[in-house]
């Protein structure tokens, strides 16, 4: 355990009230334990549980800061309280306060979830142990809250993106069709400025339609569950290339692929990832025809799949930015697009429990790599995961 440096925090804890549940059959020992805490400045209030039934009833009724449990009790042992709390879904630190406890047993107890163990003839150690356990629980709770908050705000954002893009489509369709109608009927009949304005309006409407559709696709990645199944990446690559046939032919791109692994993934989402990466490799090509290599590496716990190109590359300071939604590195006239493609890739890969990054430099081509865990894990989706946790 690391040394605590936050002295102010410690002081605040020391003077604080402490709700203690003692699991103890010896009243004299219980008294000694409490005295050790009070001497160290705790205002300790304690309940006593001697049996499993009493313990269960008390933890259901009260909120304890810490549980101090004897390892050996006549009818059960203190470690069972750890398991019981877990079943009750309660995060209360359990410190074993016990007579001689072999080194092996002690280590085993910590492994199983006890916060610490203190020997009854070293009760002077107890206050510091309690302080640390309480502090660690507070941190865990803060962490959990932050994570829940983040998950909630992500869900809200997705919901917002979905509703907004869905409801935007209808009025947008009106703008698009009627500016087109305007162009069809009145192009060349007004003056040059009018033609230009109509063109701008048409172009804007069309771009916004694409944007709304892409945003909808982005929000769908999180909304729809994943169908995780055994997926042959060679087949996935083939499918994504079929979708890109026109772009491949038009650019004269050469695609080389090595033997790719079979992974646990949602195949249609994986097709989208490879398709977006290859489409980018074609779009951001240099003066020579694109050469794109798709390869894979097997590491101990994951597969690393790479898509390497000979295109214009990405300046070092921009490499973090490419995965951010709506972030574009080029003028629209140079390279069209709305900056959603790579953020969709990132979302899909992270949802599969993997990572995605890029290695590149200006004028050096880019290599996008992503990992997929060798065994399926899912975040947020409802994929199958038969592993025992």
């Amino acid at each position: 355990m690391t040394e605590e440096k936050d002295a102010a925090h410690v002081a605040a804890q020391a003077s604080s009230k402490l709700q203690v549940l003692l699991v103890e059959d010896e009243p004299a020992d219980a008294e000694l334990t409490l005295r050790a805490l009070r001497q160290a400045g705790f205002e300790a209030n304690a309940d006593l549980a001697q049996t499993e039934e009493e313990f269960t009833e008390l933890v259901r009724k009260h909120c304890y800061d810490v549980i101090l449990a004897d390892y050996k009790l006549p009818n059960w042992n203190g470690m069972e309280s750890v398991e019981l709390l877990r079943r009750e879904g309660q995060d209360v630190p359990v410190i074993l306060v016990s007579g001689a406890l072999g080194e092996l047993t002690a280590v085993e107890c910590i492994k199983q979830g006890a916060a610490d163990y203190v020997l009854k003839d070293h009760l002077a150690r107890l206050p510091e142990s309690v302080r640390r356990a309480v502090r660690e629980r507070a941190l865990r709770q803060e962490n959990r809250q932050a994570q829940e908050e983040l998950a909630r705000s992500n869900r809200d954002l997705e919901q917002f993106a979905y509703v907004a893009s869905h409801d935007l489509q209808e009025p947008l369709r009106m703008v698009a069709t009627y500016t087109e109608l305007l162009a069809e009927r009145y192009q060349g009949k007004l003056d040059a400025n009018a033609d230009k304005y109509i063109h701008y309006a048409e172009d804007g409407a069309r771009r916004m339609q694409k944007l709304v559709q892409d945003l909808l696709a982005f929000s769908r990645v999180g909304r729809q569950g994943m169908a995780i199944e055994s997926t042959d990446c060679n087949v996935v690559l083939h499918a994504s290339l079929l979708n890109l046939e026109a772009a491949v032919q038009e650019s004269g791109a050469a695609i080389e692929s090595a033997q790719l692994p079979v992974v646990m993934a949602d195949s249609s989402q994986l097709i989208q990832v490879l398709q977006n990466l290859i489409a980018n490799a074609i779009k951001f090509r240099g003066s020579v025809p694109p050469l794109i290599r798709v390869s894979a590496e097997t590491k101990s716990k994951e597969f690393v799949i790479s898509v390497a190109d000979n295109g214009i590359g990405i300046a070092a300071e921009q490499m973090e930015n490419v995965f951010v939604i709506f972030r574009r590195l080029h003028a629209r006239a140079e390279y069209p697009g709305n900056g959603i493609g790579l953020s969709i890739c990132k979302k899909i890969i992270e949802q599969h429990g993997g990572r995605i990054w890029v290695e590149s430099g200006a004028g050096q081509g880019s290599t996008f790599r992503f990992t997929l865990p060798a065994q399926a894990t899912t975040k947020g989706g409802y994929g199958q995961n038969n592993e025992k946790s």
Partner: protein
Amino acid sequence: MKNPEILMVDDNPADIDLTSEVLAQSEGHFRVNSVNDGVEAISYLRREGKYVRAPVPDLVVLDLNLPLKDGCEVLSNIKADPCLAKIPVVIFTSSEANSDVTRSYKMGANCYLRKPGNLAEFVAAVQSMAQFWLGFASLPKRERR
């Protein structure tokens, strides 16, 4: 079919205008009438109130998202009414949701057509709908009511 009658149910005047224009310019001599919400649609079809002299449509073009009574309810009213059930209903909507498509067909819609997002496709969709339903397809004979 001679002078086919179409009832368009849509709360968006822009879509009614565009559809009417496309149909006016095609060869079928279509007559397009329109109402803007679901309650009006049912009154029209049942010839109630001001619609007592309304012609019986040969085709209903129905949006899903309607005020007062939504398209699905209108559809189920039509299909549950022995006098109206034989009139083909084309759902014409901007909804892409698969659930809307499935539900519409399950409720007896004769066709589900999504309103395309650009002019050329919109024109093509309306033209082919009219051509198919009021040209190639055999429809029940009109009865005097």
